[in-house]
């Protein structure tokens, strides 16, 4: 198999890799905020439960969570395993990343001086207005570097979808490597991930720059 065919075959899986990546971000970024707010809830039981869930999600391998989401329902309830693996993959990734984003958000929210809340309160902002207009924009700026880190990690983590037989780029690479007894597909995969991350890095850098108008 020529290098070119290898690259062509693997880029067929790249679409699926991108699907995992973008859908995971689409769901985990907002979900993380909900989790962060639950984690900071003044109702002790809510924050305790949320905290426990976060430690489980951050304290167990993503691969295990992928298996649990994909095959867990079948083993527990005998339900069908999803034919389209994108669904369980995105669910598992979104939940896992939401836990990480939640902790980043929490750190960001807690770093905002209490004076910002007080100033808004005295000016008659509602709680929601305060959060959406005053707190969140400042939180976003503060957490951008940590979020970029997670996003870069996500690009690489998409390769874990192979454990549930989702035919994304890395899975195809492994198949080629196996049938061709060649290490080349792994190099190609590495190059793909690297280029993907260079683009991600550039885009995140631009967002950070746009938020640079104040300090």
């Amino acid at each position, binding site marked *: 198999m020529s290098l070119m065919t290898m690259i062509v075959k693997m880029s067929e899986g790249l679409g699926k890799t991108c699907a995992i990546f973008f859908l995971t971000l689409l769901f985990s970024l907002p979900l993380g905020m909900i989790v962060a707010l639950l984690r900071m809830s003044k109702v002790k039981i809510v924050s305790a439960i949320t905290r426990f869930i976060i430690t489980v999600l951050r304290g167990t391998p993503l691969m295990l969570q992928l298996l649990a989401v994909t095959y867990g329902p079948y083993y527990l309830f005998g339900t069908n395993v999803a*034919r389209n693996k994108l669904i369980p993959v995105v669910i598992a990734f979104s939940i896992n990343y939401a836990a990480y984003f939640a902790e980043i958000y929490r750190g960001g929210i807690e770093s905002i001086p209490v004076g910002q809340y007080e100033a808004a309160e005295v000016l008659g902002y509602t709680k929601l207005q305060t959060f959406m207009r005053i707190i969140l924009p400042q939180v976003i700026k503060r957490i951008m570097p940590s979020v970029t880190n997670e996003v870069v990690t996500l690009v690489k983590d998409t390769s874990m979808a192979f454990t549930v*037989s989702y035919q994304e780029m890395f*899975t195809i690479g*492994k198949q080629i490597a196996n*049938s061709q007894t060649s290490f080349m597909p792994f190099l190609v995969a590495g190059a793909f991930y690297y280029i993907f991350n260079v683009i991600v890095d550039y885009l995140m850098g631009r967002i950070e720059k746009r938020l640079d108008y104040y300090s």
Partner: protein
Amino acid sequence: MKKILSIALVLMMVLGLSATAFAADSSPVADRTTFVMGIDPEYPPFSYLGDDGDYTGFDVEVCQAVCDLLGWKLEIFGVNWDEKLVQLDSMECDCVWSGMTILDTMKEAGYVISAPYYDNTQVLVVKEESGFKSSEDLAGKVVAVQLGTSGESLLNDDLADLAATFGNVITCDSFLKCFTELQGNAVDAVFVDLPVAASYAADHEGLLIIDEALGAEQYGIAFRAGDAELCEAVDAAVQELVENGTYAEIAAKEEYVDIVNNLIFLNGTGAEEEAAA
């Protein structure tokens, strides 16, 4: 030209000498003292050059145990795989025992072949309720295969035509996942080694092994025509090793993890399992 010729002559002499050094023992089984095992030295994990420079591998270890049992001294001879039967005939070794696929042509040519000990047959496993009866029924359906198994390579090469009729072939990184996908209705069939299929189907209800041996092969030991007695002695010795547990002990080694499921003496064949059931 002369020079090349002389080098070739010298080489032939050296080869000839080494061949005579390993001259096989044609004496009957009873008073045999040595046993020359013909192997492909580059066929791990069945036979290969170990890290310590000595030949090893599953076949070599079993053969050593056989020789220990029968009181023979084991000598190992690396054959040229393309010429293995010629070398066997020319008494350079007493058998060819090295992950060798049993071919009908061997039997037709009069070679004595041992009981098959390794089953490389691939089958399709489906759910009984699905009503699939043959590989043709699976046209357009989704088939799971374990990544890196002979099944996967078969679907890529020898059985590529069959694979093309499937709707999709997905690869799982363990056969357990293949079967989970099947039982969870995410795929319609699993393409897997027969012994694996048989043992899994025996433990799990509702599965059906489609009665088509795809890419069927079995490994055996080849002996010269007329060495039936020797073959029987080796077969019997191997059976004794199976019974006293030595065989399982060798198979349990880490380096043989990939082949252990296909060892007929330990797992039985699919056919036997079905007969038992």
